[in-house]
Structures are given as structure tokens and as C-alpha cells.
């Protein structure tokens, strides 16, 4: 059994190695090496946090030092967005440390943070379309030219800040909207590499795999998730089930097996559903799968029976398509909240 102090040190030592490897990647300077470095810095930031959390009670200086290191790692990992969340914690933690020590500890970080935030804001503001998305919270414009413009702007900011997982997630959804499947997949995987604990991203990546990869490749991506579905989060269960439904459409010879796997994922999702919308969509999907497995035509009132009357009234078309669109939008809207957590 490890003591708190041992856990603290193990995390710091592991983080140290990642930071040095990441710095070597930055020194190399190619786009690929820099992105890999961003991934390593994000992992190092998580380890710094874990180290402080392991040490209870944690002396104020060690807590502040941990947050400073976490923030620095996120800045080095080109993610001022996540660094900003840590910065607000730093400002409150410095109050518990004597003034001279806190100032000396922050002397390296403060100018680096200010510079990075300033250039991040400048980069975003140089693309009016991103400002519009920020104000309206509508990521996918209705006009196809606007969609392309939004994607170009997102990629331009990512070129300067390749470590922001939310921007990669946005790029993935925009790439879907402009029918660029390679970029849609590449971008969601990049988002996930930076933020592997983001449940919503993980869940969405399953559906992107099912829609955009060859069925055999998609199956290889989904297989480990099926093995752990009994302890997966509700979003993952939901999107895993939809992924199988999508793949059943794409490869009709495997329909029954896929619907059965989808039904298993839906059942695993119910106990962990944390919101009413989630339970309703799971319900709708369950009704669809029960009918499909029994070789019945799905009930046209399926959405009403699942409690999704509004969706039924406004969607038109097949109920399963409406369910999928609703689930994709709902899970997509959770990317940010998972990051903040």
C-alpha cells in the first residue's frame, strides 16, 4: 500500500519524464512532434493535479506549486483555454502562501500566461466567424459557405494552438458538416488524445468511427468499449449503441448481431443515465431495437412513447434518425463541461 507521500512523488516523477520528452518534441519543431508534445504536456498536467490531490493535507506552497506546474504544462501544451481555468485556482491559492514566496513562485508563470492568453484571444478575434459562434453558441452555420469559413477559421487557430481539445472537437463537427470524413475522424481523435478522460468526446468518437471508418476498422475501435460497457458512462453506452445501429445499416449481413450488441449497450446505459433527455433517448432506442430484433417495423409513434413528443412533432423522417441527431447534439454539447470537470 502506497502512502500519500509516495503517491505524490510517483506522480511528480512520472510527470517530470513526460515534460522532458515533450520539451524534446518542441525542440524538434515539426507539426507532428509539437502535437505529440501537447499530448504529453496535457498528461503531465493531469499528473501534477493527481500529485496534489494525493497529498492530504497538502501544504499551501505545495498546492500552489502544483497548480503553477499544471498551468505551465497546459500553456506549453498550447492550451490557454484549459490554463485559464487553472489560473483562477492559482489566484485563490496564492492567498494562503506568504507574499514574497508566492510572488517568487509566480514570477515565471505570470508573464507567460498573460502573453499566451493575449495571443489566443487575438487569434480567435481575427476570425469574425468564431466570434459569431461564441455569441450565438451555434457551431454549425446553416449556410454551407459559412460552414467552410468556420472550419477554416478553427483550423487556423489550431495551427497556432494545437493543444486545445475543444477546438479539435469543433473542427470535427464542422468537418462532418462540410462532408470531410478524414478530417472529422482525425480531429476527434486529436481532441481525445489531448483529453482522454472527456466522456463526451470518447462517446462521440465511437459514432464517428461507425460512420466514417470501414466497418472492420470501426469494429476494431468499438471492440474494447464493448468489453467494458458494463462499467461505461451513460453517454458511452448510448453512442456505442447508435454506432452499432449505424454499422447495421452499412453492413446488412451483420444486422441481428449488431442490434443485439446495441441492445446490450442500451441496457448498460440506463442505470447510469444522469439526465431526463438521456433516459428518453435510451428509451426510444430500446423501442427501436426491440422492434428490429423481433423483425417488426418500428412503431411510427416510437418517439412519443419514449417521452420525446417535441422531437416527434418537429423532426419528420425516420424516428431513429431523429434520435441519432438529438443524441449527437446533446453529447456534443457536453464536450466543454467534461473538460471543465
Amino acid at each position, binding site marked *: 500500500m502506497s502512502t500519500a507521500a509516495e503517491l505524490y512523488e510517483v506522480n511528480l516523477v512520472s510527470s517530470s519524464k513526460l515534460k522532458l520528452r515533450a520539451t524534446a518534441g518542441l525542440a524538434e519543431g*515539426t507539426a507532428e512532434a509539437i502535437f505529440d508534445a501537447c499530448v504529453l504536456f496535457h498528461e503531465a498536467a493531469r499528473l501534477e493535479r493527481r500529485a496534489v490531490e494525493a497529498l492530504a493535507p497538502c501544504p499551501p506552497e505545495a498546492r500552489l506549486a502544483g497548480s503553477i506546474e499544471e498551468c505551465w504544462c497546459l500553456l506549453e501544451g498550447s492550451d490557454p483555454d484549459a490554463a485559464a481555468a487553472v489560473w483562477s485556482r492559482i489566484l485563490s491559492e496564492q492567498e494562503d502562501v506568504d507574499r514574497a514566496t508566492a510572488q517568487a513562485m509566480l514570477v515565471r508563470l505570470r508573464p507567460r500566461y498573460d502573453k499566451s492568453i493575449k495571443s489566443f484571444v487575438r487569434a480567435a478575434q481575427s476570425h469574425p466567424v468564431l466570434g459569431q459562434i461564441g455569441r450565438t453558441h451555434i457551431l454549425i452555420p446553416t449556410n454551407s459557405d459559412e460552414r467552410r469559413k468556420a472550419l477554416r477559421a478553427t483550423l487556423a487557430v489550431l495551427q497556432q494552438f494545437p493543444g486545445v481539445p475543444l477546438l479539435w472537437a469543433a473542427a470535427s463537427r464542422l468537418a462532418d458538416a462540410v462532408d470531410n470524413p478524414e478530417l472529422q475522424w482525425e480531429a476527434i481523435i486529436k481532441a481525445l488524445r489531448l483529453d482522454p478522460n472527456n466522456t463526451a468526446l470518447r462517446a462521440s468518437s465511437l459514432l464517428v468511427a461507425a460512420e466514417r471508418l470501414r466497418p472492420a476498422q470501426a469494429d476494431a475501435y468499438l471492440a474494447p468499449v464493448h468489453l467494458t460497457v458494463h462499467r461505461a458512462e451513460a453517454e458511452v453506452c448510448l453512442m456505442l449503441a447508435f454506432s452499432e445501429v449505424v454499422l447495421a445499416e452499412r453492413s446488412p449481413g451483420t444486422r441481428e448481431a449488431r442490434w443485439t450488441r446495441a441492445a446490450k449497450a442500451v441496457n448498460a446505459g440506463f442505470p447510469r443515465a444522469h439526465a431526463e433527455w438521456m433516459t428518453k433517448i435510451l428509451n426510444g432506442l430500446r423501442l427501436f431495437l426491440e422492434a428490429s430484433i423481433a423483425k417488426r417495423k418500428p412503431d411510427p409513434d416510437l418517439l412519443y412513447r419514449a417521452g420525446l413528443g417535441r422531437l416527434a412533432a418537429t423532426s419528420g423522417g425516420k424516428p431513429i434518425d431523429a434520435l441519432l441527431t438529438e443524441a449527437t447534439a446533446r453529447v456534443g454539447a457536453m464536450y466543454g463541461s467534461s473538460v471543465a470537470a
Partner: protein
Amino acid sequence: MTERNPTRRVVEYRLERLFVDQDRDLVHDTIAAALAWIPGRGKAKRQQPFHFEVEHITGTQRARVQLDLTWDMLALESAVPGLRDQVRRLQTGRSAQREHITELAAYALTFVAISVLLPGRRARAFRKGSAPDILFDLTPGALRGVESAGRSSGGKSALLLIRNGTAARAGKQKVPGKASLLADRADVAEVHLSLWSGAPRISIMEQIKP
């Protein structure tokens, strides 16, 4: 590592020794940058051994050490696979970032300085957001370690600017020196400064605390 002259201490150090003297996982990613940075750009300078004039300061004592650095590429490559290509990419690659090469080389040389001048001490952790960069004791509230910095050129005056900082000038704020900042830290029990200039090859290793 051998000492040749008791009056003016000359220390020969083979870089591959670092994998024994220090934690190999920490050393591993600094070697390519060290090999790319230490020889400098002029061809005439690219010959081993590479001499560094090191001023070692502890309390009121000052000692001069000539550090003669050598390496065996084959031996290093067995510890760092692909090292030769990495060094070539760092020296000639269009995308290579000089500031990070200098930063990593300074860490490698600081590992050498710890091995030579603080025998028995081993780096255990490394951090970037606040000083000291290299830690051999992570006890919260009583850290022990070395703060490292490198400059490609500038010699002793450049290193003293890092140590002492710069006064406020028209339009520019005062930049505090590393020595005073480290001395102010209540959570640091022991700290040394390890500063390196690439051209001329000069270094300062100074115990700041206690």
C-alpha cells in the same frame, strides 16, 4: 570522471556516465539537444573534448573547474536509439526550435554539474513552471534542487544577468534575478544555480541556499 590537477581542478566527464550518475529516464531526452548545442555552429569548435570553464561558488568559497566533456556516440546511441538522426534534425532541421534546444542542453549540462560538483546527489524530478527546475528532494515546504538556465552566447555577463536580473529601464520593467527570487522562497531549503553559456563555454554553479 578523473581529476588531473589538484590546484586548478580539471575534470574529464564522459556524457554516457550520466546514465549511471543520474536517473536515466530524466537524462534520456536531454542528450540529443546537448549534442546538437554544445559543439556550436563553427566547424573549428566541433572537436572533443569540449572545455567549459566552471566557476563553482559555495558560500564564500570560489573554485575554478575546467570541465572537459567528451562522449562516445556508439555508447550514447545504445542508450538513446536513433540519437544520431535526432541530433542531425536538431542541427539542420528547418523547424527545430533553438530556444528549446538550449533549454534541454542546459538541463543535460546541469545533470553533469550535479554529478561532478555535488557527488552522490541524483535528480529525481523536473519542473518548468517555477524554480528550481531540477529537484533531488521533493519534500513539500523543504525542496532541494538546482535551477538551470542556458544562453547560446554572451559568456559570463549573460549569465550574471540571469543571476542578478536587470534594473528597470525606459519602457521596460525590472527583471528580478534568479538568485534573489530563490532566496525569497520559504518553501525551498536548498538550492543551487547552474548557468551555462555556449559561446564562450562558461558556466556558473552557485549554492544560493542555505
